[in-house]
């Protein structure tokens, strides 16, 4: 049997997420903080919808009944040196 990864940054599989939901972390905010998806370099861009789908299926909710966690700047990771104004070139 292969593993179904939903979050590559934090190495979370579908089974990890389902287990967290069954333990009672069954809203998107608690699930994020318990399981750790969306806290890596992609900041949820890869995993969020997968987790919402699992949550909706498991709790028998419509995906539209759910909300995303707060989306924060930066869109992509930025070096501290750039934000401190020490570098002219704004490379990522």
């Amino acid at each position, binding site marked *: 049997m292969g593993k179904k990864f939903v979050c590559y940054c934090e190495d979370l599989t579908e089974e990890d997420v389902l287990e967290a939901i069954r333990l009672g972390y069954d809203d998107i905010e608690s699930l994020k903080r318990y399981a750790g998806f969306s806290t890596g370099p992609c*900041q949820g861009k890869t995993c969020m919808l997968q987790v919402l789908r699992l949550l909706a299926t498991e709790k028998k909710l419509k995906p539209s009944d759910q909300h995303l966690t707060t989306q*924060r700047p930066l869109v992509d990771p930025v*070096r*501290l*040196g*750039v934000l*401190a*104004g*020490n570098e002219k070139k704004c490379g990522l």
Partner: protein
Amino acid sequence: MRIVVIGAGILGLSIAYNLAKRGADVNVIEKQYPGSGLSVRAIGAIHSQWKNEYDIKLAKKNRDLMNRLSSDLNFNIPFRRDGHLMVATSKEQLAELESNAKLQRSLGVDTNVLTPEEIENRYPFLNASSIVGGTFSKGDGSVHPFSVVYGFWNGLEEHGGQVTRPTTVTALHAKEHRICSAETNNGAFEADAFVVAAGTGSREILRSVGLDVPTELVKREMLATEPLRFFLRPMIQVYPEGISFTQTLRGEIVCELPTTGEEVRKDTSSTLEFLEKAATELIRFMPALSDVKILRPWAGLVETTRDSEPAVGRYVYDNLWVAFADSGKSVMFAPVIGDLMAEQIMSGQTNPDLGPYSPARFLP
């Protein structure tokens, strides 16, 4: 004894767990999700380097409770006793730190004064050129705040308590000297005692029974970088109101700064001003971080009172207890406040250790 706790933040859950452990029938009413206010936004400093005797005594008790919290709750709570280093950037601040350290030592806390050379020798990654000295306590440390929130939540449920969510308390109802029910969007909840631990929502709930506590909101912003190999052990804080930073067990550098100024919106939005200032400060103290990337910022509102102490204790009505106005202490002191408050509520006797935090000090 039936008890309703309003607010499943770190304080509400700690009080609720400790009540349930003592045999009370506890229902915690939460508007959003457990920890949703400030509790899950803190970077988790746990220190005992305060300036008042009562804060130091309470912090010392708290540290002991924190040390055994994992086994008490049977839940993995990574409290790292890697020390807390407070650094001063002026002679006046250092004099204050030194006098605080003297008081702390007289009360049995292991605080040492360090010179800039000692600080650089211990932590070679630090640029101590703007540091004139500091104080360090080895038994202090940091904790992952979510784990404390979830540990108390889990412990509460194991002792038969529950968190009712999402449910919003809209008002309390009083009859003579007692509170008789909490009105919510899901009906009224009756109980023998009520605990208001609703963070920044507490004042509105208290106003429904003619009470208030004057408070102010201070915005604090935090950030986490990409994970790095583990190297930064203690929590480092630029005394008194500068940046605090450490490395989490996941390897991220996390830091926290107050966002001040007339223009600051008192909400939990992230600002570019913070990102620029935090980046500048982190590089000032750790130049090697220049090439490290920020993954995400976040923000929280800290509620403070005129004496920068929380409001914790019985408030006017015989069966009404409050624990709010964080003042930067709710994650720091959650285990001890929960333990002492539960003891007070069950026995009806006030505990002198919590006396200085009593909301009665705000009564006219």
